[in-house]
């Protein structure tokens, strides 16, 4: 392979600044999208477990729609197609006056997509709470909201912490698709550095390392969270015979 390596490019200005700015955009997109996905996904996950038919139906429709369309396609649809199906004035507002249109669209799109995955985790968590507890709640005279508030949610959410970690990690990695609609996040900045310096391998190596560091930090934090929230007896019991 004929390639002239030059690692110095990574610490020279303005390229170092581009990498830092790209990292900041990646963190901003991923964190905002995660907050949105966690909130919306929890609500939809809960909706899918309620005994109320229309709510369940809505939740299922949402999950199937957003989970089954590739994220890349969704980015394109939200950015290019969505403003066109709106009434003319609204579409124009989205395209021209929306603050930071690329960034906002990326956060919303990633948030909606990830919410469908969180919803599935939440649903499986709630379903994993032993049925006996539910029956006990009902027998004790708790209303449906009370059963959720005091039994299902506290247990269900703790059960799914480990699997939510991988969705949290996926948000950081999926945020790289925002470059297709023009957000200058980490991957886009790496391409930009390649464009200016023709040192693409160095730029993408740097991006790889930064992604790894970010995800490693997330893993460490989530392991702590997991250890704190573990329900003694409940999680352990799943492995053995009930």
């Amino acid at each position: 392979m004929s390639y002239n390596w030059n690692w110095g490019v990574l610490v020279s200005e303005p390229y170092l600044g581009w990498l830092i700015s790209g990292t900041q955009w990646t963190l901003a997109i991923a964190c905002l999208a995660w907050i949105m996905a966690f909130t919306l996904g929890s609500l939809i996950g809960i909706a899918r477990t309620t005994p109320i038919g229309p709510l369940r139906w809505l939740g299922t429709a949402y999950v199937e729609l957003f989970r089954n369309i590739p994220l890349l396609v969704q980015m394109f649809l939200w950015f290019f197609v969505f403003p066109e199906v709106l009434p003319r004035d609204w579409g124009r507002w989205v395209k021209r006056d929306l603050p930071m249109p690329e960034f906002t669209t990326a956060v919303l799109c990633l948030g909606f997509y990830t919410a469908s995955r969180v919803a599935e985790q939440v649903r499986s968590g709630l379903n994993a709470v032993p049925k006996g507890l539910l029956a006990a709640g009902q027998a004790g005279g708790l209303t449906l909201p009370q059963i959720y508030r005091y039994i299902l949610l506290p247990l269900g959410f703790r059960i799914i912490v480990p699997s939510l970690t991988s969705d949290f990690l996926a948000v950081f990695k999926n945020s790289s698709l925002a470059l297709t609609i023009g957000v200058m996040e980490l991957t886009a900045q790496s391409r930009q550095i390649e464009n200016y310096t023709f040192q693409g391998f160095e730029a993408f190596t740097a991006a790889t390392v930064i992604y790894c560091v970010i995800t490693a930090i997330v893993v460490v934090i989530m392991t702590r969270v997991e250890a704190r929230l573990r329900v003694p007896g409940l999680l352990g019991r799943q492995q053995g015979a009930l």
Partner: protein
Amino acid sequence: MRFPRIMAALVAAAVAAFAVPTPAAAQELYGTLRKIRDAGVIKVGHRESSVPFSQFDQNRRPAGFSVDLCMRVVDAVKRELNMPNLRVEFIPVNPSTRIPLIANGTVDIECGSTTYTLGRSRQVDFSSIFYLTGTQIMSRQNSGIREVEDLANKSVALVLGTTNERAVKAAIERLRIPNVKVLMVKDHAEALLALETDRVDAYATDEVVLWGLRNQSRIKDQLVITGRLLSYDPYGLMLRRDDSAFRLLINTTLAGIFRSGEIEQMFRKWFEPAGIPINDRLRQIWEYMALPE
């Protein structure tokens, strides 16, 4: 006694490998030509929407002015290697991937619309220049945009990873044009879409690419291509560095096409439908690049 038998077979195979006579000419091969001969395939990089240089035709097969030139190079490679049945594998590339894919050996020759720059020559090599163009601006007729200065307080789409992107950004900075909103997109098709859907007021890239895109557009009558050339963009076919033999083969092929005047027929085939006439700038470059045998 299995083990010694295997050893004997290995030794026999090794001896056989050395004993097979190789043609004298083939022994001198190195670099890309050798790689092509050994693999039995030449990997041709092409663009998907770089009209009319390198694009998909109705059957989703690569076609265009650069692709035609490349296919002549492929013919020359077949003759040189005496491999009439050499397989051609087309690999789509885009401005962000084309240099790494050449450098890492995935693509042997890129037939697109790549500007020959000295900076890029640190990573890849280029053939003779076969086309000469520059950056202009395409906008809606009623937008009032004629020159780069008119982009003040307007939005413009640029394709990430192109020389045109750099040229426009440099012009904006140099001329201190205030409040230009830049939308980075990933290819020409997306840039055109952004312009058609009124997400941006203008799209700046190679003049000839703009003509091709305008021709494809559903609102072509509303689009105008204007402005002075903001950059000097000579196009070359891209190949790996440090490979004089392969470059010589490419340049010999190109010089033959330029010298015989066949280049004008190829030009008309692809550029006349887009309404782009031959200019003296192009005639001159072909004359200069028609190196004598």
